């Protein structure tokens, strides 16, 4: 049975009308939020209000300004003449209980771009095939979830990025290590050894910090680390605006469960009004138990972020750039990150070139998955193992017309 479009089309039309209506109400609320945001000029008052929320354990999860005025934009600085940019990304093949053998695979790609030089960029990939029972099953004997594979891949990504950054600490020029996605990492309860994974992730952050310290000692340059979030849907600043709109008596957990009349708005509404292309927002600290855990590891590890308009005058595009406090607390390093990211985004219109290439290196395409499955099948047969696909998979092959070698036709 295929999708019956004559039944779906009326629903799509209703969806379009509903989204348009929602956007009208959102734009009205966005205007209110913008007026309130513009009035946030007193940093002391903001910090006092956040402290009040903390004292009352009100569960505030919004943004706290680091040290800069929040309602102004920060222009694009000049980039350093030379720098080396490392970007890491990962991809995976999830365990398939219907396949010939149970396994999963993670693949990390790292791309190294030498800013200001004509040198050929470097690239490397690190695939890891996991097939042992200990890696494939949780403590109850169940096959691990996709979330567990994602968590292990994320940790491996940062470990490889840290190792490659450390290996280049002798280059004698600024380094910028870019991880795809947020830097705050936490795992759900369905991930086996979640605590260990979080510790491993933090250890990789420490390794990145060590690279920075080593580079500082030898050449005075910085090794900055960032997490790059494209088109963020976060509402941390909206939450701050809402918090500041309350009277002190209202600052309670019940009131902060939502963003009240601003619920549904995301920070992009405010940032597109505030930031012109190339400009960044003030630095903010996200208030969360996860970030507190990072801070408990050391003040240098607390995660700070700014928003960056990486778009063009006619097409704004927002990114959230997260960094540890060791980067955020030095204005020169923040400028370096800001300028290098803009230079990278300009090469690809509005996304960092290095991250694009890292993603391309990491991705496991469906044809490669099929080839890997075939390789595993061959290896199993060579080792006199019986290869049986589940009935479900066989049925899918029949339905989708999967072809074997020799049967493929070029379009």
């Amino acid at each position, binding site marked *: 049975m295929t999708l019956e479009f004559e039944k779906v089309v009326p629903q799509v039309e209703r969806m379009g009308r509903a989204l348009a209506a929602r956007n009208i109400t959102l734009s009205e609320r966005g205007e209110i939020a913008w007026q309130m945001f513009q009035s946030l000029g007193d940093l002391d008052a903001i910090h006092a209000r956040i402290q009040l929320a903390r004292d009352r354990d009100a569960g505030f999860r919004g943004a706290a300004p680091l040290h800069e005025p929040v309602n102004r934009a920060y222009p694009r600085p000049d980039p350093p003449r030379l720098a080396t940019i490392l970007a890491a990304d990962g991809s995976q093949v999830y365990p398939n209980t219907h396949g010939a053998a149970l396994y999963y695979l993670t693949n990390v790609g790292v791309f190294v771009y*030498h800013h200001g030089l*004509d040198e*050929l*960029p470097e*690239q490397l990939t690190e695939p890891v095939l996991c097939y042992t029972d200990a890696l494939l099953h949780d403590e109850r004997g169940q096959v691990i979830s996709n979330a567990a594979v994602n968590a292990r891949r994320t940790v491996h990504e940062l470990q490889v990025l840290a190792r490659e950054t450390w290996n280049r600490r002798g280059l004698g020029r600024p380094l910028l290590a870019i991880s795809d996605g947020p830097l705050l990492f936490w795992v759900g309860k369905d991930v086996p050894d979640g605590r260990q994974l979080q510790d491993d992730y933090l250890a990789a952050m420490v390794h990145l910090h060590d690279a920075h310290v080593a580079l500082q000692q030898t050449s005075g340059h910085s090794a900055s680390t960032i997490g790059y979030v494209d088109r963020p849907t976060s509402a941390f600043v909206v939450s701050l605006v809402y918090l500041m709109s309350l009277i002190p008596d209202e600052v309670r957990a019940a009131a902060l469960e939502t963003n009240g009349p601003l619920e549904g708005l995301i920070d992009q509404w405010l940032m597109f009004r505030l930031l012109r292309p190339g400009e960044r927002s003030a630095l903010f600290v996200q208030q969360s138990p996860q970030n507190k855990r990072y801070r408990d590891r050391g003040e240098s590890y607390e995660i700070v972020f700014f928003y960056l308009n990486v778009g063009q005058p006619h097409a704004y595009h927002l990114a959230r750039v997260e960094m540890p406090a060791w980067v955020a607390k030095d204005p020169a390093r923040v400028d370096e990150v800001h300028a290098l990211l803009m230079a990278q985004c*300009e*090469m690809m219109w509005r996304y960092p070139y290095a991250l*694009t290439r890292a993603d391309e290196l990491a991705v496991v395409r469906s044809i490669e998955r099929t080839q890997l499955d075939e390789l595993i099948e061959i290896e199993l047969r060579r080792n006199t193992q019986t290869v049986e696909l589940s009935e479900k998979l066989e049925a899918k092959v029949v339905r989708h017309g999967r072809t074997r070698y020799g049967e493929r036709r070029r379009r």
Partner: protein
Amino acid sequence: MNETTTQQPVIGSVLRASTMGFVCGTRSQDIGHPSFGAFVRTQHEPGSETEVIGLIYAISIDDDPLVRQLILANNMNTATTRDQRENRMVPVEISVVNIGYIQAGRVYHNLPPRPPLSLDPVQLCDDACIQQFTERFDFLRLVLNTSEVPTEELAAAALLHAASARPPEQRYDFLVAAGRQLAGLLAHDLPRLQHLLRLIKPA
């Protein structure tokens, strides 16, 4: 670039093939050697007695979303260009039309008995091979009857390649003889013949 025992460069490997022709792939930085109308040959296997002879009629480089994005951004530098060409291994496809084969040292101006296989190396023909293959002009009929190929331009380019594979003193006579053969083949189509003769007219 690989070199074979005949010192002619391997320009790529067969991607797909039929008895009519084949397409070979190579990396974008390796396209210095092949040119339109050049003679190429493939061998089914090392030591095989049959060599398929063909003419290059198209060299194409496919685009991809990343390249499109880079062009759109219009902010390329040497490092990104090198990255695209050397790291990303942008494939170049070289299309070849079969015009004959050499079996046990004898030249046949006919379609080969079977096509080359995937990954067979494709090599530019050396001067001796081109001279041997173009001693007669029967292959021109195959070229002129090929569809979806700019046949006049291809035939002219092949004849000029074949002429330059000969000593300078033989080139004029070779091209005149080729012109006579073409006059016979295209007697019914004078505009086409006229165009072709203009293309191969000796300097």
